[in-house]
Structure formats: structure tokens, C-alpha cells
């Protein structure tokens, strides 16, 4: 049977593995958080995997992204080490930030991951800078700012759209529209129905896709990333998606309509959708996917064990890493 997809079987398996890794990473955090193992605020990306994965598949390590408070999915799909991430979330040495940053501040500049961010919209100006640097380097690199539907109303984000267009930067803006900012509905807080119109207000093309459909995301992202690489300037991509869990761990989600969560899990699970698509096309077998599922579970279990076993930072670490020592 021929492969009807724009990716080789090998690449499809890789993408599935990435999505599954994100999913299991988050499912595990959900359990461990409720057990009291994990300190601080944790925002899970579960349900949104197709967006990060479908976009990041187009990127190389010279391409850069700036993420949000809900950053684990972006990190994993950008290639940040899962063990180092888990250690960071546990506040341990050997974490991406040696335990100093935590879930909201995972970064790995060597992989082009400029950081999750606790400040909404703050990644957008940074991405303008990354894209500007790319323009000066002139190697066709791009930079992508991820932002939630809520944060899409932040002045920093809006200014960045204009700046990126004015400077014709290889910058992309991805609005991850999961319908909520914390407990507040997107349709209340954002005055315009379509992000395509908002993009037009800043002179750039906008596209809306079903963010739970990996292939839809992959295709749309490919187009705008390619255009940016070729000097065609910025675009905005809205991914309509769903959040499997609450805003943060501990959220009772009483603001959701009855049946909403069941519907989400049943009908809008991007991993299920992907599985159906690739198995129905006969390109990948269910068994192959299950094998990955098992491998991923082991990877996550191992990451948790390593995180738990890792040493805690000590007083000596408290005052290092503020300024550069000369």
C-alpha cells in the first residue's frame, strides 16, 4: 500500500513517538502531582500534542522557539532531553536549569528552545529578536512564538505582530486556542472570532487549522515556515485544540459544561486521531504504535526514577548563575 501522507513511515513513527512521549510525560505528572511529589504550578499540555509536534517537525536546532507556561510539549518536540526536564520539574540538579527554573522555565538554548515563560505573551518579542538574529545570519532559520488564546490579547504579543511584519522577520506566531484562559472562555475575552482577521490587522497572513489533526497542522505550518525561510515574512497560525486537564493541576474545572471533558477525550484526542489515520491507511500497524506506547512508558518511568534519585541543589548553588563571572 502506498503512503498517502507527506511524511515517510519512519518520520510518522517519530512523530507518533513524540506525541506519545508528551502525553505520557503529562499523564505521569498529573498522577505524581496529585500524590504531592511535585512542587509549584504545573500546566499540562495533554490533548494538545499534535500542534507542537506537527509544527516542530519542520524545524532544525538552528530554528528557535519561545514557549508559554504550558511548555512541556514544546520542549519535548523541540528535542529537549526528557530526563533533564523531569529533573527540573522535581527541582533537582541535572535539570535543564539545575532546579532553579522549574516547570515554567524549562529552556535549552542549544536545542533552540528559548524557554517556557511564566509571563503571558513575553515570548513574542523574544522571538522577534531570534528571527532578527536569523535574518542577520542569513541561513534561512526561523523562530516561532507560541501563545495561548488568552495571551493573544497581551500588548506584548500584539506589538510583536506589528514589529515582525514591519521588519519582515522570519517569525511565526502560533496561537494555541484551547478555548480557555484559566477559567475564562476565549469567546468572551477575545473580541474577534477568527485569528485570520487579527493577523490581517497586522498585515500578515493568518491560517486556522484543527490543532487536534496532526496532518492539518503539519501542512499549514510547513507552508508558512517555508515562506518565512524564503524571506516571505511572518504569518500567524491558529490551532484550535483542547486541554485534557485543568488550567493547572488542582483546578476543579467547574466552569466546563457538563459532558465537555468526556467529549474532548472521546472525540478530540489527537493521538487517537493520528492512530486511526495511519492505521486506516495501512501505513503503520496498531501493533507498531503499541510497541512505541510501551517504550515511551518505560522512558517516562526511567525519567521519573532518575529525577527522584538526582541530588538536590545546595546552599552553594543559591547565589551562582545570576551574573556571568569574569
Amino acid at each position, binding site marked *: 500500500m502506498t503512503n498517502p501522507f507527506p511524511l515517510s513511515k519512519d518520520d510518522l513513527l517519530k512523530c507518533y513517538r513524540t506525541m506519545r512521549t508528551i502525553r505520557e510525560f503529562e499523564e505521569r505528572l498529573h498522577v505524581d502531582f496529585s500524590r504531592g511529589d511535585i*512542587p*509549584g*504550578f504545573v500546566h499540562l499540555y495533554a490533548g494538545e500534542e499534535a500542534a507542537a509536534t506537527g509544527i516542530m517537525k519542520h524545524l532544525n536546532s538552528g530554528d528557535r522557539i519561545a514557549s508559554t507556561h504550558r511548555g512541556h510539549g514544546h520542549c519535548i518536540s523541540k528535542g529537549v532531553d526528557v530526563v533533564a526536564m523531569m529533573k527540573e520539574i522535581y*527541582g*533537582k540538579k541535572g535539570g535543564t*536549569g539545575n*532546579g*532553579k*527554573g*522549574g516547570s*515554567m*522555565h524549562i529552556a535549552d538554548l542549544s536545542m533552540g528552545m528559548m524557554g517556557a*515563560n*511564566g*509571563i*503571558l*505573551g513575553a515570548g513574542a518579542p523574544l522571538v522577534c529578536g531570534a528571527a532578527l538574529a536569523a535574518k542577520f545570519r542569513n541561513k534561512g532559520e526561523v523562530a516561532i512564538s507560541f501563545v495561548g488564546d*488568552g*495571551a493573544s*490579547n*497581551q*500588548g*506584548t504579543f500584539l506589538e510583536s505582530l506589528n514589529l515582525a511584519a514591519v521588519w519582515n522577520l522570519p517569525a511565526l506566531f502560533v496561537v494555541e486556542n484551547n478555548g*480557555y*484562559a*484559566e*477559567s*475564562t*472562555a*476565549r*469567546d*468572551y*475575552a*477575545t473580541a474577534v472570532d477568527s485569528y485570520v482577521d487579527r493577523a490581517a490587522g497586522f498585515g500578515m497572513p493568518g491560517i486556522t487549522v484543527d490543532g487536534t489533526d496532526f496532518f492539518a497542522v503539519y501542512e499549514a505550518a510547513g507552508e508558512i515556515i517555508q515562506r518565512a525561510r524564503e524571506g516571505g515574512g511572518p504569518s500567524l497560525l491558529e490551532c484550535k485544540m483542547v486541554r485534557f486537564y485543568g488550567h493547572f493541576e488542582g483546578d476543579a*474545572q*467547574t*466552569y*466546563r*459544561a*457538563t459532558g*465537555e471533558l468526556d467529549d474532548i477525550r472521546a472525540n478530540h484526542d489527537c493521538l487517537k486521531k493520528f492512530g486511526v489515520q495511519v492505521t486506516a491507511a495501512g501505513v503503520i500497524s496498531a501493533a507498531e504504535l503499541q510497541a512505541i506506547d510501551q517504550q515511551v512508558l518505560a522512558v517516562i518511568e526511567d525519567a521519573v526514577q532518575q529525577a527522584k534519585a538526582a541530588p*538536590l*541543589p*545546595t*546552599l552553594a*548553588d*543559591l*547565589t551562582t*548563575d*545570576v551574573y556571568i563571572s569574569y
Partner: protein
Amino acid sequence: MARKISIKQAVNEALDQEMARDPAVICMGEDIVGGTGAGGEADAWGGVLGVTKGLYAKYGDRLMDTPLSESAYIGAAIGAAACGMRPVAELMFIDFMGVCFDQIYNQAAKFRYMFGGKAETPVVIRAMVGAGFRAAAQHSQMLTPLFTHIPGLKVVCPSTPYDTKGLLIQSIRDNDPVIFCEHKALYGIEGEVPEASYTIPLSEANIVREGKHCSIVTYGLMVHRSLEAAATLAKEGIEVDIVDLRSLSPLDLDTVLDSVTKTGRLVCVDEASPRCNIATDISAQVAMQAFSALKAQIEMVTPPHTPVPFSPTLEDLYIPSAAQIAAAVRKTIKGGQA
């Protein structure tokens, strides 16, 4: 006066009573109602930690959820205040001031002066401050000095439920802009609070413990750490005065100077970063205005000059401890004897 409530409840009660009393009082902020526009429970959150929960049921549209646009809605609160309302805007975490600071320090704070005394801006901006929540570098700052530095702003940071209620009611009635700092690690602590409405002036520090050997001047969570330190020191025969500033601007310097004049020694404790903070502010004023009363060097206890670390181990080391405060008291007492 037997009823005990938490600081969280004290905030809620102050808002409730002022909203009932004065129709000009309105509230706005992100998720202060919660669930707006969604299909489930109305009033689903009452703020990210439930502080405003229940007020929507009573006051309806006088509480407004906002888009994630702090400049716009904090600015709107300020603009509405200049037009006859008494808005209470919630800036969820004080750490977010960086996206809306202009409205606060260049607008609200300066209207009265720039307009020759012909403007009043009775706005309150409530915000969570402080560390201890494992919330990391962008959700754990104090930043109180940044507001205290600005002429035209009043800055309040209570340490008890009683003070919280009385100071918040006063802040709402005050005709100047007030930054009302609620320490997130103190929301749960309980204390006796009258049910009836009452106010505490924004210009009076509170002596929370009396002693003759040394003055500790502080505010917020550090009041509690200082009380712990005082208990330890008492066992060593050292009795400290603890001045809870409550209001950082205006500052009740007289109470501070009186205390130092009595004890001859000063330890300033501040959870804010060490440079140009409240501790340096108080220390400097004392070194200028009560120098001759000082028997020894002033000591300051603050976190190190670093962002707030995430790891609980590090965060616990970051926040000034009762042990560090006690050590500073011992040091200045020893210093005077040397």
C-alpha cells in the same frame, strides 16, 4: 471579637462590605469571577486562589473578568477612578507589574501633581506578593520597593487578618492610588477579626512585640519570621521590639525612630531583593535621623541578590529565616559591645 478568620477571608469580607456600602466600588481582574463565557458554573473560581469567591453572586456585573491585558484593565481601573468610581483591580501576581507599570507610576501616581491638585484617583490595585509557593522567579517576587520608590503611590502590605481587613477598607476609601500587597504564603493564617466594618489608617506602623534590646523593623511574612526569632531570643534574655510597618508608603517613621531611640539597635528585615529595598530605606533614615541613638551597626536581613529559585530546597534557603534574623540581632548586640 472571638471570631477567627483567615487573611483570605479578610480580603473577601473587606471587599464585600465596601461593595455593599458604596456602589462606586467595582472589581476587575483575571478570573476574579471565573468561568465567564464558559458553559459551566458561573463564579467558578473567584480568583486564582478563590479570594473573591462568592462576591459575584452578590454584586453581579460589578465584578468583571478581564482579558489577559493588564495594561488595559489596570489602566481602565485608573481611568474609571478619575471619573468617579472606586475600582479595585486585581493584578494576580505582583510579578506581572512589568506589563502594566506605566499606567501605575506614570499615570495614576502622577495625575494629582501634574494636574495641579485637581485630580483624585481612588484606585486600589491588589496583588499577591512573596515567595514560598515554589512558584519560581516570575511568580514569587516582593517588588514592594519599586512601588514605594514612586511618589504618588501608597503601598500597603499587611501581616494579619485584622490588619488586612482594616487596611483594605481604608485603602478603598482612600483617594490616592494604593498598591495593596497580599502575601500568598499568609492567606491561610487565621486571627481575630471583628465582623463589623472598621478602618486602620495607612500611616500607622504597629508594634507587635515590645522589648528593650533591639528593634526589628519589617512587614508582611517577615513579621512572622521575626516573631519566631524573638521567641528564640527571649530564651537567651534578649527582648526585641518588632515594628510591623503595615504601610510602606506613607511610612510611619516616627514609630521606627521611637523604637530605635528606646533600644539603640536596629535590624531591618525585608523579603524584597537587597538593593534599594525597604530595609535600606529604613536603615538609611535611621542612620540619618536617629544616629545618636544607635549603639551599634544596623543589620539588614534580606534574601541574596538573585532571582527567586524554584527548587524548594533553594527557595527555603532564599527566604530570610527566623534563624538569620536572630543571628542579626545577636550580631548588632555584640557589635555594640565590641
